[in-house]
Every structure is written in C-alpha cells, then in structure tokens.
C-alpha cells in the first residue's frame, strides 16, 4: 500500500500532494435551495477537478478500487484528469461503471472508495465522487459518445427492472455483443433513480441521457410490463426465447411501523410520497393531474434515518413545509444516510429529533393526522445488526404536532416475481436466493441481484451485483454450463 510515483503523469511531488486541500464542491446556498428542486451540488470546473486530482497518492495497491462494488479504476481515471484528458477519464470509468453521472452523485463514497483512501489517514480523502461526476458531466457536455462495436453473439437476455442493477447488467452485456431487452413495470425507465431520488440530488435529465446512451449501445426497453403479471419469467424463456433472465426488481413493499393511526390521512410511506413528487410530478398539480397534500405552512416529519428519509423530508421542505423533522430512534453515529446528505439537510434547516420514536399517530377524530406521540430513546446493548439497540426512556412521551408523517423505515420483499416463478428459491424474508459470487438463482438461466436479493441497500451495491451478474451471465451464455 505504499505510495509510488513510478511513471506517474502527475507532476506534483508526493509530499506536496498531501498539502493541497480537498477542493470544495460548489453548491447552491442553503437558504436558496431549500425552496427549489434544482441540484444542490453544482459540480467542479475543469480547474477545480485538476486541482483535486493532483492530490491522488497513486497507491500501488489502490484500496479505493478494491472497495468499489463495481471496481472503478480510480487511480487511472484520476491520472487522466491530471493531464487534462477528461474524455479518456470518462471512457476509463465506463469500462467498469455504466452510470458514472449517477454514482458520482448518489454513491456513499465514504463507505467505499473515499472511506479507504490513504489520504484520509492524515487529511481529507480524495474527492473521488466529485471527480467521477465531473468527467461524466464533461463527457455529456462534449456530446461525445463511446459506442463499442462488439460482435453479435446471437444470445438474448431479458432484464427485469430498469433500476441501477438492471441497467448495469444491460450495459455490460450489450458491450459483450448480447442482445438485451429491459422490462420496466412503470411508465418511466430508471427505477429508484426516477421515482425515488429527487431532482435536487439527481436531475432526471441525467437519467434520460444515460438511457439514451444505452439505447445507442443497442439496449432495448419496454415499459408498462410487470414481470410476473404481464408476462412470467418462464414465458420469457420458453415462449419469447430469452437465453437468460436477470431479475433486478428492487426492494418492493414499504414497511410500516404497525402502530395505531398509521392509516390516517396524512401518513405516507416514503415510497408513495417520493413517487408522487418525482415520478408523477404532483408538486406541479394542477398542471400535472396526480395530487398530493399541500405542504405549505404545514409541519411534516419523516420517520427513519436513511437516504430515502432525507430525500423525503428535504422534498417536503422544498414544497413549503413550515417545520421539517427527521425522527430517528438511534443517534447520529448509526444514521445510515450519506454523510453529505445529512450535512446538506442540517444546512437547510431540517430539525433532527434523534433518539426518538413515534408510538402512535393522533387524529382530529375525522381521520386526519394531527400529531405523532413520540418517546425518547437511549442506546442499550448491541442488537443483531451490531448497532446499539434503542430502548424507550420511561415517562419521556410527548406529542409532536404534524400534518404529514412520512414513514421511511425500509422495505420488505415484493412477492410478485417469486410467487409466479416455480422453483425460484427465496430466503425466509422472501428475498430471492442468489449466489453472492455469480448472482445465480436456484433456477437455471435465471439470475438476480440488487435489493430483491439483499433487501434495501444502495445504488452502487445494486450496480455491483449487476456487474457480477453480467460477468456470470456472459460465462453461462458462452459455455452453456450452469
């Protein structure tokens, strides 16, 4: 792991690199962005990107790459930024990552590449995510597209779900010359990237451009197909002649807390709340027909501490909420959300009620939410997840007045594909069984990955599964061996 400067194109001596501060990401001012859906981060300029890129220590054994679920060759693409070959850097990333403009924005880099960056032992880690985003955006602005021309293999693959794992599988396999068709249940492509992640964190235009790029590569898409209902996995294989199927349907059903009053009007699942905003554009009602409750001047809380929770509450703030709370039963240290999102949310004025949990929702007697009855918690012994278990504090009950409560405590397995595919093994929580190495399921020629295998996780972990699946599907299609 010792840094080496062998044949480096980076002119800066190693000792100097550590003295260069991490370049700050230019961002929209908090007070301004709290009222709009425009992206928070504005992106590096070429100068900033190069100033940041020179900080890379070019480790002989790059732990950043080892800790990247899709194995992006960080050191190599960063070196290309140093010398100003931004398009080369983009192409380098694309060898491993079909969605760099997405991961550069939403990946929890602190848990992967940047978390293991050698610089972080002394100073702040290299801004790998920011650099990735920069080259992806640069490539987009230049309008230059790298379309590989692989020899057609004559094999056909069906991908179920157009979220991050499905798109990764499709992108990887089409580059190997296989014919790929992606089926999507919703009317728009992109899965969670479109219905889940809001515009201010991931502009939808970026997804559309990524999809256009994939179409150029030859990937076919079909919307309005709920696999399991509209067509089954068996029909795709036997009747439509697909040689392999990849299931990347995502996590599925939102969980509720099963506390009294959860059915009151004003209580949403985060998925519904975000779908109304992101997919259905309900905030543009009545220009768009899908309605949502008017949040202007209302008090809104989200329950949960993940990225979805923060996406929901920051959206509520932007829609005019007077008070916007995060209610989380553990402490800051256990919050699963990306560090940058928590930081941004605090800047925007989100009120974090930590070590707090609702026990009941209260109504006006006509079925409309008026408050959440909450208790304060303290942390006890570690639980099965290894995190300290929150325990209610005696006598700490209080009522938090609310018009809208958004529940973002995770999801459980969507049963549609499993229940309509005989022989497809599931675990005791209902998720699809798949090999961690090859993503093969218990059914021949059927692969699965992402949240439908692991339960709710992140975009990059889903993409990592997609990469492994694509490799293993290619092997299967080439050798015929199962």
């Amino acid at each position, binding site marked *: 792991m010792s840094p080496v400067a062998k044949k480096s194109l980076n002119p800066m001596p190693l000792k100097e690199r550590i003295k260069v501060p991490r370049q700050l990401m230019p961002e929209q001012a908090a007070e301004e962005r709290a009222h709009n859906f425009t992206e928070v981060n504005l992106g590096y300029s070429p100068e900033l990107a190069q100033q940041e890129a020179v900080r890379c220590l070019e480790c002989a054994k790059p732990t950043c790459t080892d800790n990247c679920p899709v194995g992006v060759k960080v050191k190599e693409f960063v070196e290309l930024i140093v010398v100003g070959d931004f398009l080369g850097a983009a192409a380098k990333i694309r060898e491993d990552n079909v969605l760099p403009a997405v991961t550069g924005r939403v990946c929890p880099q602190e848990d992967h590449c940047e978390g293991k960056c050698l610089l972080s032992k002394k100073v702040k880690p290299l801004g790998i995510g920011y650099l990735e985003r920069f080259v992806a955006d640069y490539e987009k602005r230049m309008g230059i597209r790298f379309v590989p021309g692989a020899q057609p293999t004559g094999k056909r693959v069906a991908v179920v779900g157009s979220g991050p794992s499905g798109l990764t599988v499709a992108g990887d396999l089409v580059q190997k010359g296989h014919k790929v068709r992606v089926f999507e249940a919703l009317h728009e492509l992109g899965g969670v990237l479109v219905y889940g992640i809001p515009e201010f964190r991931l502009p939808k235009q970026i997804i559309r451009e990524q999809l256009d790029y994939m179409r150029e590569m030859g990937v076919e898409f079909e919307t309005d197909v709920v696999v399991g209902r*509209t*067509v089954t996995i068996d029909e795709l294989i036997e009747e439509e002649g697909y040689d392999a199927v990849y299931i990347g349907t995502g996590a599925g059903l939102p969980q509720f807390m099963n506390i009294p009053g959860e*059915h009151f009007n004003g209580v949403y699942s985060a998925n519904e709340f975000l779908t109304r905003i992101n997919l259905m554009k309900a905030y543009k009602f009545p220009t768009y027909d899908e309605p949502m*409750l008017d949040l202007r001047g209302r008090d809104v809380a989200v329950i949960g501490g993940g990225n979805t929770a923060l996406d929901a509450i920051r959206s509520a703030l932007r829609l005019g909420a007077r008070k916007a709370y995060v209610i989380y039963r553990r402490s800051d240290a256990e919050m699963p959300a990306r560090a940058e999102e928590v930081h941004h949310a605090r800047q925007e004025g989100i009120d974090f009620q930590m070590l707090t949990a609702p026990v009941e929702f209260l109504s006006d007697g006509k079925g409309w939410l008026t408050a959440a009855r909450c208790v304060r918690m303290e942390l006890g012994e570690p639980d099965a997840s290894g995190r300290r278990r929150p325990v209610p504090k005696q006598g700490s009950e209080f009522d938090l007045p609310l018009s809208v409560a958004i529940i973002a405590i995770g999801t459980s397995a*969507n049963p549609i594909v499993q229940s309509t595919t005989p022989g497809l093994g599931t675990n005791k929580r209902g998720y699809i069984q798949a090999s961690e190495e090859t993503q093969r399921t218990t059914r021949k020629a059927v692969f699965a990955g992402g949240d439908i295998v692991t339960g709710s996780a992140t975009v990059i972990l889903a993409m990592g599964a997609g990469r492994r699946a694509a490799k293993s599907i290619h092997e299967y299609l080439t050798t015929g061996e199962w």
Partner: protein
Amino acid sequence: MFRIVDAQFLAPGIKRFVIEAPRIARKQKPGQFVILRIYEEGERIPVTIENSDPDRGTVNIVVQSAGKTTQLLNLLNTGDQILDVVGPLGKPSQIANYGTVVVVGGGVGTAMAYPTAAALKSAGNRVISIVGARNKELVILEPEMRAVSDSLMITTDDGSYADKGFVTDKLRQLIQNGTRIDLVVAVGPIVMMKAIAEMTRKENIHTVVSLNPIMIDGTGMCGGCRVLVDGKSQFACVDGPEFDAHQVDFAVLVQRNSMYRDAEQRSLAEFQRVSAVESSARELEHACAAVPASRRGEQR
C-alpha cells in the same frame, strides 16, 4: 401507446373501450385490473377489466366518468391512443366449485363482477346474480350477466326498471327464502359492499369484496393503496384487490379515498371550465363558418 379499437357507451357516463394490449389480453384473469395514464401529465388510475380476447390481443375496460381523468378518458374514441396501460394487476379471483354463489354487481362494479361470475359458472357453480343501478339507463351488461347466471335479479333505486330497491333487498330475500349460499362476491360502491358484508356476517356466509382504493404504481412499491383488513395493513394491488368482506375496515377505506377530494374537485372544475371555453369557442367558430364572409363583415 395502446390503441383503442372500439369505444361504446354502455350507459350514460359509462364507456367500454376495446384496447390493443396483447400481453395483457393473454394473461388477464377474472378479478384483475389495469392501471392507465392517458397523457404525459396524466395521473395513473386503476380501471376495471370487463373481458379480454387473447386471440385478437385486445382487452375490454369499462370506465365511469367521475373525475377529470375518467371524463377525459370517456372523450376518447376508436383510433385514439392511451399512453400507458399496465396489467393485469392484482391477484385473480379464487375460482372453484363452491356450490351456490351469489354475485352482486353495483353500478359500474358489474363490469368487474362479470368475468368472475362467468368463471364461477364455468367452474360448475350455480350462479345467482344480482345487478343494481340507480335507474334503468345505468343498468349495464344485462345480457352478458344473464348468459353466465342461473338466475339474474335486477334492481333500480328509483324503480324505473325491474324491481325498485337495492341489491341488498334481493340478497336478504334469498337468505330469508332459505337459499343455501356458499359464497357471495360483491363488487360496487363501498356503501353497498359494506351493507352486504354486514348482512352476510350475521348469516356466516363467506363473502368476498373487490376494493378500489387510491393507487399509483399497482405493483406494491408505493403502499398508497393500503387497506385495513383484520386490523392489519394490506396492499390492495398485491394482496388484493379481493378481500374477505367480514375483515375489511370500510370506514378507513372511505376515509382514505377522501384524501384528495379537494384536489380532485379543483382538477375537475378546472377541466370543465376549460372544456366549456373550448366548446363554446368551437361553436362560435362553427357558427362563424356557417355565415358567408360578406355577411360576417356586415355584422361587424
């Protein structure tokens, strides 16, 4: 895009569309529904499947004008396109030979009840159907229901056709006459389904209702369609839409369906205002065109 190959009013405000949707036509089973979106800014709404023809690759849907989207939908005609149609969604009706089944269809709910009645008949059941509507004009699918029922009873609220009264009156008569009923399937307005549930609960007759809560994706992802069944949250799109009537909390269903009433009314009023302006503009244009140019000049 999904092309409309035929469109006919079954009754005032209730229209049947035959839509080219080969994938859905092949898979559709009684009890299932579709979700559709008419145009880019449109909402997603669940719609009843009345029948399908796998050979032609078409699905029949039945729509009753209520809000903006259904009113707009009912303006569409043969040759028009619907942007998105997805399905078939929901679990199919459980079809078996139960013995004697009473199938109740209230209003446009008859369209949803019809394929289930047909399948129950084919499965060897004695099917007694009860169809109710507000008045004569709104009775739909009478010949279709008659063809799949051992007996068919019709009620109208105002007595303008068949027997005056409610579907529950007919069901009560059947029960009082000592008719052995093994299953009741009821599809219609919530008040009707609730009244039937109350009646059969006392008699211990297994009863299934098909629920139509507010829904977005229809695949279980959003949880908006959750209904309270046996004290637990269930998703109508993946766990239903059919549930044991005796376990459904109808009050919660009514309450949740009212969540966007203000927005719905606003949307509808705006739509009607715009339509009125457009149609008077059209009339004016029409009237002007009918008048020779020279005359028009004189009028000014």
